[in-house]
C-alpha cells in the first residue's frame, strides 16, 4: 500500500514541481533582447541572418517559421544536437543516459497500459492472441531492456568520466556526483529487480497493484527500488537536473526572441506593463543615486 502512495506521490510531485518551475520562469519580468544568431525561426535568412539585412526592415513583414523553430527544438530534445555537433565524445554517453530515460518513460507508460490491458482480461504476452496484447508486450520488452541498459550505462559512464577527466573533475561538486549516483542506483536496482523477469510479466503485475492500491508482498529489493525511484522523481525537479524546464526558456525566450518593439506590437504591450513596475531594490554606487532635487 505505502509503495502505491510513494509511486503516486512522487509522480505527482515530479509533475507539480516541474510545472511550478515553468510557471516561475514564465512569470519573470520582461528582459532586454539578447538574441543570438543563427535563429531558426527567421524566414528568408537561412544563412544565419535576420530582418536587419533588409533596408527599412520595420516597413516589411517579419516572416517567422514556427515549424523550423519547433523542428530545431525537437532536434535538441530528441538528439541533443548542440552537444552532438560540438562535443561528440561526450555526446555518446550523455545521449545514452537521455535516450535511456526517454525509453524508460515510454516503458513505464507501457507497463501501465499493459497492466490495464490485463485487468481488462486481455493477455499481454508473446503468445497473446490479441494484436494489442502482442504490441504492448513487444514494445514494453524493447523499451524496457534498451532503456534500462542505456540509462544505466550512460549514468555510470558519466560518473566515471567526471571522476577521471582532469578538467571535469575540477568543476564537478559532490552534489553533482550524487545526482548521477542517484539515477544510477535507481536504475541498477531496477535491473536487479527485473533481471529475473525478462518478459516483464511480474513488472506488469506490480504496476497493476501499484495503480489499483492493492497491497502485495514486495521483496526488499523491490521496495528499495520503488523508494529510490520515488526519491529520484521528487529530487530531479528541485535540482538543476530540471534543465528540461530551463532549456525551453533559454532558447525560446532568450536566444531566439528577436521580436522588435514596434508600434502596436505585443512586445510594446509587455514593455508598457513592465515599465509600470517600480523596483524595490536599488543600486548604491554614487552615479546610481537619483540626482538630489533642487533646493527651493
Amino acid at each position, binding site marked *: 500500500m505505502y509503495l502505491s502512495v510513494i509511486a503516486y506521490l512522487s509522480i505527482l510531485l515530479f509533475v507539480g514541481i516541474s510545472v511550478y518551475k515553468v510557471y516561475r520562469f514564465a512569470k519573470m519580468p520582461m*528582459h532586454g*533582447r539578447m538574441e543570438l544568431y543563427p535563429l531558426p525561426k527567421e524566414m528568408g535568412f537561412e*544563412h*544565419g541572418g535576420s530582418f536587419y539585412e533588409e533596408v527599412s526592415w520595420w516597413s516589411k513583414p517579419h516572416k517567422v517559421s514556427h515549424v523550423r523553430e519547433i523542428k530545431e527544438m525537437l532536434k535538441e530534445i530528441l538528439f541533443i544536437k548542440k*552537444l552532438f555537433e560540438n*562535443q561528440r565524445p561526450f555526446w555518446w554517453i550523455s545521449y545514452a543516459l537521455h535516450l535511456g530515460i526517454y525509453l524508460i518513460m515510454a516503458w513505464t507508460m507501457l507497463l501501465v497500459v499493459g497492466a490495464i490491458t490485463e485487468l481488462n482480461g486481455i493477455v499481454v504476452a508473446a503468445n497473446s492472441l490479441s494484436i494489442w496484447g502482442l504490441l504492448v508486450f513487444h514494445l514494453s520488452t524493447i523499451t524496457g531492456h534498451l532503456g534500462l541498459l542505456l540509462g544505466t550505462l550512460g549514468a555510470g559512464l558519466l560518473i566515471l568520466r567526471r571522476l577521471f577527466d582532469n578538467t571535469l573533475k575540477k568543476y564537478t561538486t559532490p552534489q553533482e556526483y550524487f545526482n548521477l549516483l542517484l539515477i544510477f542506483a535507481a536504475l541498477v536496482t531496477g535491473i536487479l529487480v527485473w533481471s529475473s523477469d525478462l518478459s516483464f510479466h511480474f513488472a506488469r503485475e506490480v504496476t497493476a497493484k501499484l495503480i489499483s492500491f492493492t497491497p502485495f508482498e514486495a521483496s526488499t529489493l523491490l521496495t528499495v527500488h520503488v523508494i529510490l525511484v520515488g526519491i529520484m522523481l521528487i529530487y530531479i525537479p528541485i535540482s538543476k537536473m530540471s534543465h528540461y524546464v530551463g532549456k525551453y526558456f533559454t532558447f525560446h525566450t*532568450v536566444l531566439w526572441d528577436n521580436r522588435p518593439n514596434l508600434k502596436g506590437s505585443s512586445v510594446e504591450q509587455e514593455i508598457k506593463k513592465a515599465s509600470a513596475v517600480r523596483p524595490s531594490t536599488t543600486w548604491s554606487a554614487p552615479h*546610481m543615486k537619483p540626482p538630489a532635487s533642487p533646493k527651493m
Partner: protein
Amino acid sequence: MLNQKDLRPKDLGRSDEQLIKLEPNQLMPLLPPYDKPGMEPALTDPKPAWREKYCTSLDGYVGIDTLTRPKTKEEEDEFVRKFLTGLEKIFTDANNGVLQPLLLSFDYCAKCDTCSAACHIYEASGKNELYRPIFRSEVLRKIVKKYFTTSGKLLGGFVGADIDVNWETIARLGELAYRCNLCRRCAQTCPLGLDNAILSKEIRKIFSQELGIAPTPLHAKGTVNQLTTGSSTGLGKPAFLDTLEFLEEDTEEKFGIKLKFPVDKKGADILLFHNAGEFIAWPENPVAFAILFDAAGLNWTLSSDIIGYDSVNYGIWYDDAMAKKVALMQMKAAKDLGVNRMVMAECGHAHKASAVVADRMALSDMKVPVESCLPILWEMVKNKTIKFDPSKNNFPVTLHDPCNVVRQMGIVQPQRDVLKAICPQFREMTPHGVENYCCGGGSGFAIMNYLNFPQFRDSVASRMKFNQILGAFQGVMENTSIPKYICAPCSNCKGAMRAILEHYDATEKFNLQYGGLVELMVNAMVSLKKPFFEFLEE
C-alpha cells in the same frame, strides 16, 4: 604561483601574490610567417609599483585601473561587504532587465565544458585553465552558494560552496570579468543555451553599479564624458563642426571632391550616426560615407546635438543604467531632428546598443527606427546607383565579422555581397559569419590602453583573430609588394586591428593594411580619379 593546469575555481581565494603567469611557449602557435622565434614581442611582468597599487594577483595584468588595493582592514572588509550586497541585488527586481536569462545561465550549467573550445581567449592562451569560460562562472556560483543559498549554508563544500571570500577573491573575480570579450560565441555551442558572457557582464555590473568601480575609458572618460561633453572622445560641438570643415577642405584638396557634410538638416530621411572616434582616428571613414551617400542621392544628415554625433554606448559593457541614459539621449537626438531612421555607420557595438539593447528601453513613440548601414551600402552596389570598378581593388581582401553586427544582430550577407562585387581577390576567414571569432577588442578591450592590459589584449585576446588573418593571406603574406587589406566594418574592431598590426609590426614587415568597408567602395568608384587609400599611391 600555481601551474595553470592545477588551478581550480576555489583557488581564486588563495593568498598567492599572483595565481598564474602566462608563458609565451604555452600560447597557441601563430601561423607563418609568425611561427619563427623572435617574431613576437616578449611577455613582461607587472612593475612592482603596480603590484602594490592594483590587483595584479590574477595573471599579472591590470584590467580595471580604478580597482586599487585597500589601505586598511576596514576598507578591505567594506569592499567585500559591498560586493556581496551587489551580488545579492543581481537576483532581485533591481535587475529585472536580465533576471530571467541570468537565472537560467546561473542555475543550469551541467559542466559539460562544451563552451571552452568555442572561446578564442581560452584557445589562444594555450587552453589556460584560468580563461576557461566556466571557470569564472563557477567562482561566481560558489560565492552565491556560500552566502545566499540554504543548501550552501547547510552543506557547504558538498554543493560547491567551498571558496574563501576576501578582497583578493573579489578583486580577482572583477579582473577575470575583463578577460572575457562578451562575444557570446560560447553561448552558441552550449547544449542548454546558457551564456557565460551574461555572468561576466553581471560581475562587471556589480563592480560599477554597486562599488562604483569601472575602467576609466569605459566610465569616467567613456559614458560620463559622453553624457557631459557629447562624446566619449571629449569632442565638443564646436570642435566637431571644425573637424567637419577641415575634412571638407582636405577631401577637396586630395580628391577634388566638393564635400559638404549636412548637419542638423531638419526633416532629412536619414540621421547617420558615427562613432565619433572615427573623426579623430579614421576620418577617411566618415568622408567615404559622405561621398557614397551623396553619390547615391540619399537625403541624409549628421547631428551636432549633444550626444547626437557619437553613436557609442560603452554602458552595454559594464553598466545598465549608463547604457540606458546614453541610449535614451541618442534616441531623443534623432527624434528631435525629425528623421525617418537612424542609420548606424561602421560601429559594431553601437549597432547592437541602439537597435537591440535599447529596443525595449522605451515605447515606440519615443523612438526612431534603427538600421544598419550595411544593407544600404549593398543596395548601392546591387542597384548600380553608383558605378564601381572592381579592378581598382585588385589586392587580397578579407573580412572581419564584428560580433555585435553578425552573431548578435544577424547582419551577415550584405557586407559580403559588397565585397564579392567590388573586390576580385576577396577571401573569407575561417570560420566566419555567425561563427566568427572576436577581434579581441570587444567589450572595451580596444580602448583600455593603460598599464599592461594592451599586452594581454594583443598577445592573447586578439591572437585568434591574428591567426585567422594570417590564414586568410597564406601564400601572399610574405610578398611585401602586395597590400593585404583586412576589412573591419567596426570602429572598435579597427582599434583592435590597429593594435595587433602595431604589436606584430605587420604593416611595416608585410604590408598588412586595415580599414572599413566604405573606404573600399569609394576606392572602387569609377568617378574617383586617384586611389582613396594612401597605401596604393605610388
